[in-house]
């Protein structure tokens, strides 16, 4: 695997420049939101609880939400409201998220299409018949998670919207590249075509061919789709403002979906040899009761590790960047920005590399698992 043609110096310079620009915007955005969210707490609870709102803010930024937040809090909030789609007992209910976001503590019950609902920290629940002692129409467990039933939330959330944007971008880019290939048969690649061609060839020659051998052709579409889906979304996650900023590949639902695809593809394509390895392992027969469950668990741990690897890597990157920026507000000094912002810049550049490497790892491990499944003869 030779990454030098992708990470050459010129491109690094360009990415570094972009990163400076993005981080500056990032810092500005968070300065606004964080100061808004931290300062009221300072006045209320003093220094003791200082860290809780910071980690709350960080988690809030990483988590999914029903709006695309820009800056400001409460009435001065600037955000794109996104449609909420709920599959309730009374049918599908749709409304824009800003219609019912004034109260997020489950204290006001609202009615949409004859269905009573309550908003608790961005989640929609069926309200309880009567409010509890704090005026909330929800029942909380010991971790302050509502135990109420909830409708199936099929909303276009920030992550979904970001994902749809990325899907459109990927479709546009690659279909136009495909048209370029059709139009310029036998000519040298040009523009976007020459930008992505080495990466496509990289996926083919360094991921698919070594892991899948001569069967690589059938799996190329899946591997290419996974690679570019993960990579583009990793990159969009690093962009701190509108078209990006969603922590999509750092969301366990999305990585679970991707890992499930690999899992299904692996097992659907599993040959005799693969299943033989699971149900008749190369051990004495009396070890079968021990080994077969282990092998079956092994089938599931692979995609679960795949899921957690991508989720934790990307989430960790986002948490790191947000934590470094939060230093400014924890230390309550603008001077801290002098340290924090270069650090964030540094981490952002690393995240660009990590975004690529994680896409590569996810794809190559998918190819590895599929390759192990489609292998005809055991090599050992």
């Amino acid at each position: 695997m030779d990454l030098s043609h992708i990470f050459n110096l010129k491109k690094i310079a360009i990415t570094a420049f972009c990163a400076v620009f993005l981080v500056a915007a990032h810092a500005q955005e968070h300065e606004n939101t964080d100061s808004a969210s931290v300062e009221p707490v300072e006045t209320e609870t003093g220094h003791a609880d200082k860290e809780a709102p910071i980690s709350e803010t960080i988690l809030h930024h990483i988590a999914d939400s029903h709006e695309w937040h820009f800056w400001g809090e409460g009435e001065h909030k600037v955000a794109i409201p996104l449609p909420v789609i709920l599959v309730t007992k009374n049918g599908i209910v749709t409304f824009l998220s800003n219609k019912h976001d004034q109260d997020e503590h489950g204290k006001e019950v609202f009615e949409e299409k004859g269905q009573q609902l309550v908003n608790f920290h961005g989640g929609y629940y069926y309200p309880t018949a009567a409010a509890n002692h704090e005026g909330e129409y929800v029942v909380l467990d010991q971790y302050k998670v509502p135990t109420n039933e909830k409708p199936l939330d099929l909303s276009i959330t920030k992550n979904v919207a970001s994902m749809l944007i990325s899907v459109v971008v990927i479709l546009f880019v690659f279909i136009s590249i495909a048209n370029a290939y059709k139009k310029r048969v036998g000519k040298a690649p040009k523009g976007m075509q020459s930008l992505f061609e080495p990466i496509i060839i990289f996926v083919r020659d360094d991921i698919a061919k070594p892991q899948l051998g001569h069967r690589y052709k059938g799996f190329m579409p899946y591997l290419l789709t996974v690679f570019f889906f993960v990579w583009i979304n990793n990159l969009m996650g690093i962009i701190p403002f509108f078209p990006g900023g969603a922590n999509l590949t750092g969301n366990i639902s999305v990585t679970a979906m991707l890992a499930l695809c690999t899992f299904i593809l692996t097992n659907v394509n599993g040959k005799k040899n693969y299943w033989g390895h699971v149900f008749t392992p190369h051990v004495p027969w009396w070890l079968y009761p021990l080994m077969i469950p282990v092998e079956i668990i092994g089938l599931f741990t692979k995609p679960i590790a795949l899921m957690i690897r991508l989720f934790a890597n990307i989430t960790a990157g986002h948490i790191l960047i947000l934590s470094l920026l939060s230093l400014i507000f924890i230390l309550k000094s603008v001077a801290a920005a002098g340290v924090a912002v270069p650090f964030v810049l540094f981490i952002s550049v690393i995240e660009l590399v990590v975004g690529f490497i994680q896409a590569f790892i996810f794809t190559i491990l998918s190819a590895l698992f599929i390759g192990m499944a489609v292998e005809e003869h055991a090599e050992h």
Partner: protein
Amino acid sequence: MLLALNPLVKPDPGLFIWATVAFLLLFILLRAFAWKPIVAALDERERNIEDALSKAEMAKQEMAKLTSENEQLLKQARAERDAILKEAKELKDQIVSDAKKSAQTEGNKLIEKAKLEINAQKAAAMAEVKSQVVSLSLEIAEKVLRKQFEDQGKQQALVNDLLKEVKLN
């Protein structure tokens, strides 16, 4: 439930469904409209490049063959030229030597002829001179004799002398 403790690690069914739909849609559309033509084009290009390379290799070999053939031809031509030159030189030498020889013989002949002529001329001249001398001598002798024999006495004397000389041996 342990998984429900932190929203970060709680799978969200809505997002999961949307992600599945979006990803499958992306996969199907890309497979049909992007990856097939792109991968096919890349394979095609690679095959073309390989073809071109092998063709270039063949052309190179052909070229090498041609060059060696050319060289051989050149060599042959050079040898031929050398042979022709040699032949011409020999011919020239022969002609020159022939010419020399014939010139020599011709010259010799001429010289011989000239010598003969000279000798003839010389002989003629000598004969002329001889005849002239004879006639002159006769004339002189006549004149002398005439003078001598004007007187009888003298004639007698001479006869005597002569008689004296003639000894009847």
